[in-house]
């Protein structure tokens, strides 16, 4: 399953110009599946960076505007779009000029794949 998912994510990367990597991880930032371009920043593929989302999304859900679905962070040269699919986190890292709306639309494209993975990791 992970091999198929890896190939699927690899096919997704060129669909958005500037998209450098797509990572599916757990809440602690441990990777389950990932695909990245050679120019992706290596440290962003590691748990210390990916794991910060779970704290942020938990706090964002306490703002009084419902459950947090996604966090978009814009940095000097990159943008990071992270989606909350408890217990999974989908992280998309792209250059700052990449189309954020197109990256957002990837969530819908990946919905089926993420649902299958969620079902596999969820303890009944």
């Amino acid at each position, binding site marked *: 399953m992970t091999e198929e998912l890896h190939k699927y994510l690899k096919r997704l990367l060129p669909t958005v110009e500037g998209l450098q990597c797509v990572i599916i991880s757990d809440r602690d930032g441990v990777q389950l599946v990932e695909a990245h371009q050679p120019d992706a920043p290596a440290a962003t593929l590691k748990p210390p960076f990916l794991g*910060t989302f779970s704290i942020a999304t938990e706090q964002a859900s306490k703002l009084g505007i419902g459950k947090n679905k996604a966090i978009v962070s814009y940095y000097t040269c990159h943008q990071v779009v992270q989606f909350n699919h408890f217990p999974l986190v989908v992280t998309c890292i792209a250059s700052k000029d990449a189309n954020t709306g197109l990256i957002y639309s990837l969530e819908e494209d990946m919905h089926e794949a993420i649902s299958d993975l969620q079902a596999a990791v969820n303890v009944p």
Partner: protein
Amino acid sequence: RDQLICTQTRQKDYSTDLGVLCSYQPGAMLKPKALTKVLDQANTGGIQCTLLLNQEGSLMAFAGRSDKKENITAAIAANIWVSNEKGAKTALGDESLQFIVLDCSEGKVGIRRVANLLLCMYAQKIVGLGLLKAKVEVLAGYLEGPLTQIATPS
């Protein structure tokens, strides 16, 4: 923008009043009412409230309609900003955090740094992400000058 700042021209010695030796130096100060009015100008078209807070999470100014506790909101928003900023320092090196959008089921929040403060804007879920970002950027650009004048060095 000059209306946001007032400058004291008189120097006053408070040593007899306070019992300790101190004196008030002329300098620039923010006009709170004018600041609130400026923040309130963004509260149209689905934007519910606009907050100005420091990076410790203390609320500096607030404008708009909100049934949530604004000081708690400010603390949470600042905490999210600081944790994302720290995460980026380890992973992205010299890059600095410019903007955060929190997309929740019942609304969106945009957070941006202005001088040494944070500008935070709450929007209803119908507001597009791009419009929220544009409004925050425009307001931040407007406030950058006056807030930089009174910014305390960190």
